[in-house]
């Protein structure tokens, strides 16, 4: 993963790509394998989208679509 090299916000670039709590497949790219939200300095996400993303991840966690804590080993 080239986490440290992405410069632009994914969601600003691609207007079709919506952040939604139901869409676990998109959200999963923004958490570590442990389930922690990756800081935006690493993903390049802009402040606004990071905020929306955070909200979506937290919602997804609540309904058990995503883990709060996951085992590190896959």
């Amino acid at each position: 993963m080239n986490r440290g090299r992405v410069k632009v916000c994914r969601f600003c670039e691609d207007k079709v790509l919506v952040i939604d709590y139901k869409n676990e497949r998109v959200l999963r790219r923004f958490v570590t394998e442990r389930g922690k939200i990756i800081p935006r300095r690493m993903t390049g996400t802009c402040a606004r989208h990071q905020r929306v993303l955070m909200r979506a991840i937290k919602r997804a966690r609540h309904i058990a679509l995503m883990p709060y804590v996951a085992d590190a080993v896959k």
Partner: protein
Amino acid sequence: MPKDYELTLVVDTQLAEGSVDETVKRYESLLGERGAIMVNIDRWGTRKLAYEIQKRQQGDYTLFQFQAEPSAIAEIDRACRLDESILRHLVILAENGFQSLVQADVAIAEEEEADDIDEASEEEEDEA
């Protein structure tokens, strides 16, 4: 003024009185009674929970998309909370209109494609 809401229900497959379908129907009519206009009901079916809830490993997911008066939401929320066959529920205000999963899937497919292109061009850079 009615607003757009989404309700996600996670039904306990073992505890649901009668069947899960009945439970879902019950909530559909409950929403109707509270003056909600149903826009879409999406049955995701049984899926594995990301973590254990009340010793359960799986739950049945249903998404309701509807329009309702904000005043009706508290009652709906309360009903879900009191129901033991509901493992989890989530009521949210759909601020940017309803999102369906189908739409979203298309977007991911496109993004994954874009990623491949990114990686390819980066490799070229490295060589140069």
